[in-house]
């Protein structure tokens, strides 16, 4: 008997790397969930921003050679973008979750609609028009 495939999906696009900030707040957690969903949908491949922060040679090289780097930050602190820029990696798209109308904390809760908001924003390319220059550092 012929086995009928349940899914005939093609591969993910190899040229796009996604760095979520994965911060502790609801918005940071949302950035991570959105990046996972985007990976499942074939948008690109999620990568570890902490590994980028320590300057992992392989990951920095992969990010440099990627067709497109997408950074998803949870809030205006833009930690993931700062990490990327510090390693010389310039994002082609930068999405900030709080800019999409999702409030940061104090609750850790989020809804499936919140994830969809972030995921669809990336697919629409809303962060491509964002200012991708070096953000101002925090005042100590």
């Amino acid at each position, binding site marked *: 008997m012929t086995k*009928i495939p*349940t*899914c*005939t*999906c*093609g*591969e*993910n*696009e190899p040229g796009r790397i996604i760095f979520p900030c994965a911060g502790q707040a609801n918005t940071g957690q949302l950035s991570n969930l959105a990046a996972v*969903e985007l990976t*499942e*949908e*074939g*948008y690109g491949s999620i990568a570890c921003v902490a590994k980028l922060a320590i300057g992992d040679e392989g990951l920095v090289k992969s990010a440099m050679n990627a067709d497109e780097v997408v950074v998803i930050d949870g809030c205006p602190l833009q930690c993931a973008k700062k990490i990327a820029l510090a390693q010389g990696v310039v994002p082609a798209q930068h999405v900030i979750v709080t800019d999409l109308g999702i409030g940061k904390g104090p609750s850790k809760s989020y809804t499936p609609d919140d994830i969809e908001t972030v*995921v*669809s924003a990336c*697919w*629409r*390319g809303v962060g491509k028009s964002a200012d991708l220059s070096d953000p101002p550092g925090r005042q100590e």
Partner: protein
Amino acid sequence: MTKIEVLGTGCAKCKRLYANVQEAVKSLGMEAEVFKVDSLDELIERGVMSTPALYIDGTLRLSGRVATVDELIRMLRG
């Protein structure tokens, strides 16, 4: 009216392509009918080996991946 068909068996990638097509059509303000085709028989009949697949007015334009909204807008304009 443009006829757009999204072929897929209903997984995350197929759903996203369908959503992106709707978004692109909305952005362009074009008159189009968007259909979701999830019948495996239909996929086999059309020779689609890799999903999701996109047909515009009966022509296969994309297969095996999801296009971004921008890419779809360019495709629909062309």
